[in-house]
């Protein structure tokens, strides 16, 4: 992390969402031992665009539906997203995308 | 299948249009809390699709209200009984 190290909460989410930029995303991904490639960025950009309009955190089920709606059934499935982001893809992708920590309501 | 509607607001603060749209003829209506002020309302206000209407006695007593002869009151045990007789409860507050 060359520019600065963003402040994180104990679970590794950005404390200040304005700290997010692509470089911060790389940093957050590295902490999850994820190497961001085009496939990851496609998802991150989709999530950020979605959040911009709807301002809700998505549970896994809705996260998968969103990716399916945007990119079709090959990518819109849990298996694909878990390969990219690990066991709880919605949560980890939201973290890397610099979106608010889900409220843990479930 | 019938519902119990539990109404907790006074006649003047209740939206009749919504309430009357939701109450079916097989349903029952129980007035609790400020809902017991319905006991003092005129017939037009009590003109629900069902005549099965009850008032919670504790809330009547608390507010110094008496019922007319044809009106029926019950206590919390009666409230519980009513919920067993209707499949669903819908609260209006």
């Amino acid at each position, binding site marked *: 992390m060359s520019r600065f190290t963003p402040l994180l909460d104990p679970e590794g989410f950005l404390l200040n969402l304005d700290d997010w930029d692509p470089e911060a995303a790389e940093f957050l991904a590295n902490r999850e031992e994820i190497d961001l490639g085009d496939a990851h960025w496609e998802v991150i950009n989709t999530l950020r665009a979605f959040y911009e309009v709807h301002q809700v955190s998505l549970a896994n089920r809705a996260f998968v539906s969103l990716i399916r709606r945007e990119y079709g059934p090959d990518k819109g499935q849990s298996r694909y997203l878990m390969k990219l982001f690990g066991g709880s893809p919605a949560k980890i992708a939201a973290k890397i995308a610099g979106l608010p920590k889900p409220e843990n309501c479930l | 299948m019938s519902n119990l509607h539990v109404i907790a607001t006074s006649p003047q603060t209740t939206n009749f249009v919504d309430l009357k749209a939701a109450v079916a003829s097989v349903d029952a209506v129980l007035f609790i*809390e400020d809902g017991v002020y319905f006991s003092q309302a005129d017939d037009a206000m009590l003109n629900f699709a069902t005549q099965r209407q009850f008032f919670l006695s504790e809330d009547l007593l608390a507010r110094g209200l008496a019922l007319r002869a044809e009106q029926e009151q019950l206590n919390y045990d009666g409230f519980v009984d009513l919920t067993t007789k209707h499949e669903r409860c819908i609260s209006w507050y």
Partner: protein
Amino acid sequence: MRYTLLINAAPQSGEAAHSAIRFAEAALRQGHSIEQLFFYGEGVMNASTLTVMPQDEQNLPASWDALIQKNDLSSIVCVSSAIRRGIIDTQEATRHQLSAVSCYESSEIGGLGSLIHALSNTDRVLSFG
């Protein structure tokens, strides 16, 4: 009958929380069971250990605590409603780096998933608000 009660009003904001506890007492007295108490929205204030009432007024959070313990009830306080109102247990205090705890131990801070799960094992759900 198995009941789930959804309590959506603070003890201080009118009669609803009081109605809920009276209903719960009557249901239990008649031999019914309460699958879950779910405190939601303003209702989470019913779980506050930090409520102080004048001696001649009922302390509803204390009454709920007694009822829950005596009957070994499952009582859930909605996490997202709770933390924004300062109802915090040890786990949430750690999670959000807070110094105080304010939720009765007889209730558990949990999610809406608990409510949904309880509904599957419930004959009647009643909301008080």
